[in-house]
């Protein structure tokens, strides 16, 4: 028996007291830890968002939005000018077209419905790229009308799926081709593949050419799954749009250079293109994340402070309760250091026990707490950001549509799906901090009492 073993034994001297202290302390430590993990997860997300949001610039031909509006598409030469600017890391280029019954042997997976038929009628009763049963353009019979199939030629095949964020497009089967090389291959949306009983390796006819299905993707919604993606040069060749680019997304090295690079592109392309960037989206998204991070930081400070106060008050209570015992120990020859050591060991024993339980609580609670913080902080942002910014998912009549803006739905979804990873080093820091606080708290409390003369303590009792 020595000061260490006495300290450990004293921690379990009163079962009810031990359970109460360990319970309170473990909850505080668990909450501190979950906030620490949430803080770390949000910090990582901010870093990730800063890398992925706020560093893209969209280029669209001036006056064109999808198949609406008017104007002249961009040319490959214009894109070459942009490529030569500084801070640009890559450019995703795409050209769009629509396949009708006269250019393909497959059918759209989306029923035209009354909305599609009315839109078709408004657009003038169809052009050469749409198929419908009647011959007369004056009064077309739209009973058997089917929507044209949107087809995109892109240097970034999966990234160009319209109506979906990059993160929500998954390759169901097959492989993704190199979008910059001319080849008669296509990625098909799950919906259109099912509608036409096509699988990876199947072929279909388009533009009078046999196209092989290299893979099937799931874009997460009906509109996205009704698309065909092919290499950029292939569509340019087959649709007779040589040297034509209908949209481009420019990736830059850092969000810091967003403004200057946007201006440089505007200067290079002049009035031929509409240039937009996602600075507002990034600002809104980062704003949400920073709010969450602040909340988690304040909660962390609060919870850690509470844990420290619990330890300190507990030790003050224990030490005062045992003033007489301290007096006895000193009367029979114990030094102040030995008395303090005994109480410090007792405090550390309680803290180690509470920290072990707190780590389990913190590990289990970290992800739910992070998600709760994220959901509460981003609900308003989601409502305000999804409608005006980015491409609207859903039924875009006649299919197709340019991927003209960065879509931030994925970013907001990413925030809501934050996961706190339980990092051993974070647990170590948390554990170490708890022990340090316990050691300081108990030593301070025991130190004050140990300085009292034993006669005073014993007389007072």
């Amino acid at each position, binding site marked *: 028996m020595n000061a260490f073993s*006495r300290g450990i034994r004293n921690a379990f001297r009163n079962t009810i007291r031990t359970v109460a202290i360990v319970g309170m302390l473990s909850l505080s430590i668990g909450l501190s830890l979950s906030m620490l993990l949430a803080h770390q997860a949000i910090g990582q997300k901010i870093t990730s968002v800063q890398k992925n949001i706020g560093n893209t610039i969209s280029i669209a031909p001036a006056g064109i939005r999808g198949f609406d509006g008017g104007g002249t598409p961009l040319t490959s030469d214009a894109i070459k000018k942009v490529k030569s600017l500084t801070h640009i890391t890559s450019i995703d280029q795409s050209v769009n077209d629509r396949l009708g019954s006269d250019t393909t042997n497959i059918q759209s997976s989306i029923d035209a419905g009354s909305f599609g038929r009315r839109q078709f009628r408004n657009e003038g009763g169809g052009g050469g790229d749409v198929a419908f049963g009647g011959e007369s353009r004056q009064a077309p019979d739209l009973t058997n009308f089917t929507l044209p199939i949107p087809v995109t030629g892109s240097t970034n095949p999966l990234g160009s799926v319209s109506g979906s964020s990059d993160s929500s497009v998954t390759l169901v089967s097959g492989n993704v081709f190199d979008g910059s090389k001319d080849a008669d291959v296509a990625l098909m949306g799950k919906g259109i593949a099912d509608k036409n009983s096509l699988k990876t390796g199947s072929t279909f006819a388009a533009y009078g050419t046999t196209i092989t299905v290299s893979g099937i993707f799931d874009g997460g919604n009906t509109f996205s799954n009704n698309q065909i993606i092919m290499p950029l040069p292939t569509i340019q060749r087959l649709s007779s749009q040589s040297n034509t680019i209908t949209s481009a997304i420019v990736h830059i090295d850092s969000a810091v250079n967003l403004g200057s690079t946007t201006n440089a592109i505007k200067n290079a392309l002049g009035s031929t293109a509409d240039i937009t960037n996602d600075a507002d989206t990034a600002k809104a998204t980062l704003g949400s994340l920073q709010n969450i991070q602040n909340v988690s930081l304040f909660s962390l400070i609060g919870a850690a402070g509470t844990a420290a106060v619990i330890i300190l008050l507990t030790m003050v209570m224990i030490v005062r309760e045992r003033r*007489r015992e301290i007096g006895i120990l*000193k009367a*029979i020859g114990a*030094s102040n250091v030995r008395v303090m050591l005994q109480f410090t060991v007792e405090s550390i024993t309680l803290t180690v026990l509470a920290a072990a339980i707190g780590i389990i609580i913190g590990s289990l609670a970290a992800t739910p707490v992070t998600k709760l913080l994220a959901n509460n902080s981003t609900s308003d942002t989601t409502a305000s950001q999804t409608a005006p910014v980015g491409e609207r998912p859903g039924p875009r009549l006649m299919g197709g549509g340019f991927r003209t803006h960065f879509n931030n739905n994925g970013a907001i979804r990413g925030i809501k799906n934050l996961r706190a990873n339980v990092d051993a080093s974070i647990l170590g820091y948390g554990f170490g901090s708890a022990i340090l606080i316990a050691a300081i708290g108990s030593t301070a409390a025991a130190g004050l009492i140990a300085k009292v003369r034993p*006669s005073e303590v*014993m007389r007072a009792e």
Partner: protein
Amino acid sequence: MTVATKGQAMLTVTNLTRSFASGDGLVTALKDVSFEIPEGKFASIVGRSGSGKSTLLSLLGGLDKPTSGNIIVDGKSLAQLRDHALIAYRCSTIGFVFQNYNLIPNLTALENVMLPMEFNGHVPHERAARSKQLLDQVGLDGAKQQRKPGRLSGGEQQRVAIARALANKPKLILADEPTGNLDEQTGKMIFDLLHSLSRSENTTIVAVTHDLSIAGRTDVTFRLSDGQLVTDKSTK
């Protein structure tokens, strides 16, 4: 008044005064007390409640510091001892026996006796062996040695306290009303135990008591009244 006794002095108290600050001013618990106790003698200090007996014992034990005067124990002046030296003094030179035993409640009788030896740097096996021997000597059998104080009678607890006081083979034992919480018969047994230890170990014992029948059986008796030493019985 100075009281001198015959023989080599183990304890010499000279002009000892202890005052405490109080709401009404200064309260003097001990006033100019001087006496000597020879080595190996059993001395008793008697007096009414509040006469300064316990204050005197605290000063002799180095638990408190005098306002003035000096205490010399085994040739060492307590006034000159610094804090760490006072701790060493309490650990190795003296042993305490308290009226209410003052055992550590969550330690067994054996562990309580081992405590002072731990503070004095003895190795564990030495502590265990001597503690068992001491508890056997004070009449606490094996099974009871493993009991915690709460499961021992008052007399048994005081035996453990005496064994603890003897653990580091002190030259001086200070006993504060050692029989005060015990019935007459048990009190007599405890007194006899202290007396026999005083003889066998040549240990000097200073016991504070209000029991005159016990005081009458000690080698020397000092009487305190209002903080002043009024008389001694004589040295046997």
